[in-house]
Structure formats: structure tokens, C-alpha cells
């Protein structure tokens, strides 16, 4: 059973608007969360992370929010750009950076 779930396989957003990608997890021991971005024919690349001691982390246009009580995190991209079109994976770990559990990914399409 997947411990990290991304229930939206795809998302389409207009350029300049906000993109919100969601991720849910079941393991309350998870204490570190990451988002990766993947372009076709390339490996995933690290985007942003958040520790469980925080509820928000910002990096430029990207913000990750963590709601521990709901076991939910989200990635906000503002404003969205066509170059953001990619598959986004969330990942979680419990006390060890050697083992991350990945979600199934959300394919974001930002329309010009």
C-alpha cells in the first residue's frame, strides 16, 4: 500500500495563474518531505523540501505547505510559467535520508 499518494494524475493551469499540487501521506513518522520535478527523457531534479518542524517553506515562485494533522502537503507555484510543465513527485522519509517514499506524480501542464 502506498504511503505517499498524489491523487491527481494531471493538472492544467493557465500561464500566470497559481498551480497547486497536492500530496497525502499515511505514515505519521514521516519527518521530511521533498518535491522533485521531472521533464520527459530526464531524471527527476530536486525542487524544494520541508522539515516537519516547519509548516511552510518558500523558494522564489515555489512554496511548500505542510499540514501535519491532516498528513497533507502541497506545492504552490506562483505565477505558473510554461517551463513549469513537467511531472511533479512528492517524497517523504522517516528519520533517514537513505529511504524516501515517492508518490505517483502529477503531470502539470501550463498553457501559454
Amino acid at each position, binding site marked *: 500500500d502506498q504511503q505517499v499518494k498524489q491523487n491527481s*494524475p494531471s493538472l492544467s493551469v493557465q500561464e500566470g495563474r497559481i498551480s497547486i499540487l497536492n500530496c497525502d501521506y499515511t505514515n505519521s513518522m514521516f519527518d521530511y518531505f521533498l518535491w522533485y520535478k521531472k521533464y520527459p527523457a530526464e531524471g527527476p531534479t530536486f525542487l524544494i523540501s520541508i522539515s516537519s518542524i516547519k509548516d511552510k517553506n518558500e523558494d522564489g515562485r515555489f512554496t511548500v505547505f505542510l499540514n501535519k494533522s491532516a498528513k497533507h502537503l502541497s506545492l504552490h507555484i506562483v505565477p505558473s510559467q510554461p517551463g513549469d510543465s513537467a511531472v511533479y513527485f512528492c517524497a517523504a522519509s522517516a528519520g533517514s535520508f537513505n529511504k524516501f517514499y515517492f508518490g505517483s*506524480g502529477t503531470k502539470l501542464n501550463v498553457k501559454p
Partner: protein
Amino acid sequence: DVKVTQSSRYLVKRTGEKVFLECVQDMDHENMFWYRQDPGLGLRLIYFSYDVKMKEKGDIPEGYSVSREKKERFSLILESASTNQTSMYLCASSLPLQETQYFGPGTRLLVL
């Protein structure tokens, strides 16, 4: 700039063949990982290695083995390929205690 390379982008093998997938990283990273990516399931960890000749099983090690004779190289071996091993295989590397993993472009394996 970290580079992780994988020996093949596409591979077609027959059932029962022994298959070697090679991964090389150039950043002197101690940790190396093998994942498989399947639709709807995200990335699942097969094996990881935290040092030369050291390895640990991930979530789905059955049917696979690994070899790490040199720090920069981590090989995934399918002892007797089966059709359910048709997948995208991704290699990654990281420094100890660092959350960011650097991924290769992936090898798409088709087992007929």
C-alpha cells in the same frame, strides 16, 4: 554540476536473460540508489548502497541484485528477466545525511 549517467536509455531483452544496468556518478557520492518507476506507482526503491561493497534492500528487491565494486559505479542486475520487470529504471546518488538525490535520465527496459 553533478552528473549521473546510465549506460542505456532503452533496452529490449528476452525473458530469462541476465540483464545488467549500469550507473556512474562523477561527484564522489557515497550513497547510490536504484528505483523503478511504474505508472500509478511512482518511484519504488529496489536497492541502495552507502559505500563500496555495502548494500541494503529497498522495498522491492525480489528478482534483483546489485554490485558496487567502485565508489562511482552501481550496477543493477536482473538475474533472470521477466515480463513484470518491464519498467523505467532510475539511478540516483547523494551525499551522506543529505536529502537531495541526483538522478540519472533513466533506462527504459522492455522484457519480451
